[in-house]
């Protein structure tokens, strides 16, 4: 019986909407426009977050894991001679285990060991890295030559290469603190415009062996998810998992991106709210006109014995049907709009999220129902005798 009644209501509502095709289409267009904007803005926000994350990724890491070194201040009172710091390292295995424990929050990382090596009698600043990690973390590095393919190949910073008159294909012998000398070949020369231009990059395990620091690293650069205040949480979690380590945010990068995201999101929320309010007002106007026109019909339904709530239910169903249909249409339009805006303004393609569909339908329903509150109150209060007389 309930199903029959529901089917009947839908049949009546559909007939009513068809009868007022122009007005129904206008309402649908308003609802679809509002929900499409909400969907588009939501999808653009998501795309921008991804875009900013990509930008952050271009900068490299947003967290640094450093060993907690033993420190001792020398001197007393006004007589201070400085700080004596013990060199300290992190255990590479423990670090990788801790990073793996953070799940999806970690987007990438690179292990670094900074130790000097001798080339003849010249001490060179050398950084041991895993080149596959460097290529992922710093994809814009383009060495002249190529990336090392074997452990005995190195990449040299452009300034250092010029000082040592080295180029891709040249040989260089490197001697570590353990006294062992390893013959190496320059695979490529890199220019970054930063400190890296003055460094020599060699395979991490080779540097560990030459320096007698197997399994040790002096710095870990981490690219973590910076959205919605996650970064401090990740930093705290890493410090907790690695008692001998300090996790520092690369503030310039992380804070800039987070602040930009917040501003963009606030702007988008405000625009969405304004559009929703305007659409709601438009729905109210159109529905009020419809109720005025249908006064006799409402009076008749009440005169035939429908309760006030029963009469309102018919109009609420109409509003719901418009809301759902408008929301669905808005979802499709929103996806197209989001793609257009993202491509033209942010040069990034949007990614369809399944949440767009319930979001669009919810927005459509909310606008249709919120906009119909006033008209439905009129329906509720309408006196059948007066309305049948045409008053």
């Amino acid at each position, binding site marked *: *019986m309930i199903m*029959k*009644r529901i089917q*009947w*209501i839908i*049949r*009546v509502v559909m*007939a*009513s909407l*068809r*009868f*007022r095709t122009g007005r129904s289409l206008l309402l649908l267009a308003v609802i679809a426009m509002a929900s499409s904007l909400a969907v588009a803005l939501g999808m653009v926000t998501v795309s921008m977050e991804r875009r900013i994350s990509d930008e952050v990724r271009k900068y490299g890491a947003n967290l640094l894991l450093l060993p907690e070194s033993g420190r001792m201040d020398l001197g007393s009172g006004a007589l201070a001679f400085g700080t004596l710091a013990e060199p300290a390292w992190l255990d590479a295995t423990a670090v990788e285990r801790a990073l793996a424990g953070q799940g999806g929050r970690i987007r990438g990382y690179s292990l670094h060991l900074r130790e000097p090596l001798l080339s003849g009698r010249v001490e060179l600043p050398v950084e041991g890295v895993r080149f596959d990690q460097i290529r992922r973390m710093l994809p814009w590095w383009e060495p002249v030559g190529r990336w090392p393919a074997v452990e005995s190949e190195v990449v040299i910073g452009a300034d250092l290469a010029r000082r040592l008159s080295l180029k891709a294909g040249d040989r260089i012998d490197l001697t570590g603190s353990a006294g062992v000398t390893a013959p190496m070949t320059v695979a490529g020369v890199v220019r970054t415009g930063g400190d890296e231009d003055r460094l020599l990059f060699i395979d991490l395990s080779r540097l560990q062996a030459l320096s007698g620091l197997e399994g040790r690293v002096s710095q870990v650069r981490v690219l973590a998810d910076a959205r919605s205040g996650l970064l401090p949480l990740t930093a705290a979690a890493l410090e907790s998992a690695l008692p001998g380590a300090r996790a520092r945010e690369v503030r310039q990068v992380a804070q800039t991106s987070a602040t930009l995201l917040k501003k963009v999101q606030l702007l988008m929320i405000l625009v969405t709210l304004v559009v929703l309010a305007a659409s709601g007002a438009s729905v109210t106007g159109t529905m009020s006109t419809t109720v005025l026109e249908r006064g*006799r*019909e409402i*009076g*008749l*339904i*009440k*005169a*035939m*014995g*429908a*309760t*006030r709530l*029963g009469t309102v239910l018919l109009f609420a169903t109409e509003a719901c049907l418009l809301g759902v249909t408008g929301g669905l249409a808005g979802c499709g339009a929103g996806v197209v709009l989001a793609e257009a805006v993202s491509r033209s303004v942010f040069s990034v393609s949007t990614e369809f999220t399944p949440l767009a569909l319930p979001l669009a339908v919810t927005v459509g329903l909310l606008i249709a129902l919120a906009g119909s509150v006033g008209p439905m109150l009129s329906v509720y209060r309408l006196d*059948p*005798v007066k309305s*049948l007389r045409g008053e």
Partner: protein
Amino acid sequence: MEETQVIIRTEQLGRRYGAITALTSLDLVVEKGDWLTVMGHSGSGKSTLLNLLGGLDRPTEGTVQVAGQDLSGLSENELARFRREQIGIIFQQHHLIPYLTALENVMMAQYIHSVVDEVEARGALERVGMGHRLRNRPGELSGGEQQRVCIARAIINSPALLLADEPTGNLDGGATRMVLELLRELRAEEGFSIVLVTHNQEVAAWGDRTIQMDDGLVIRDDLVGGTPA
């Protein structure tokens, strides 16, 4: 008269709208199955009486009982229930829902009462001679046809009392006679009572009894008896 034989009983029934008195101290008893015609000029209180009998309005004085129910003490929802279970209404201007077909207009009354039954609704329209116009909308029907759809809608839930407010006011002579004959036939078959408001003496002659109203008062109460030729 036994209470079980009474469809309408009013005692000192009155209705005022502010300073305006629309109905004054009406004592009226109508038997079940009777056809009561209410006559009077505009503003005489006919429609006010009809609204009070149909539970669409509340009296400011006295009581009104219809089908054994005292309407004065009923809540809004109870009055709505009373209307859908006991009352059928026919209007001068038909008041059919414009976007529904003839069949759907009748089914709407079923929906308000309980549950829709297309077969039963079709049967009601066939009884009033509208079986060939089931799928037509009101705009596609003549005045007489629309009124027949109204009658089918009014009787579909087997009301105890049929209220007809100038049902032939917009019809020509032929259509008027057809509608009145239909009402007479249906009353004989269904056994409902009729209260019909009209200005027309010829229409009034179709009823069993006529009351004449003026300025909110019943000034004449005649048993008509018989049927016009």
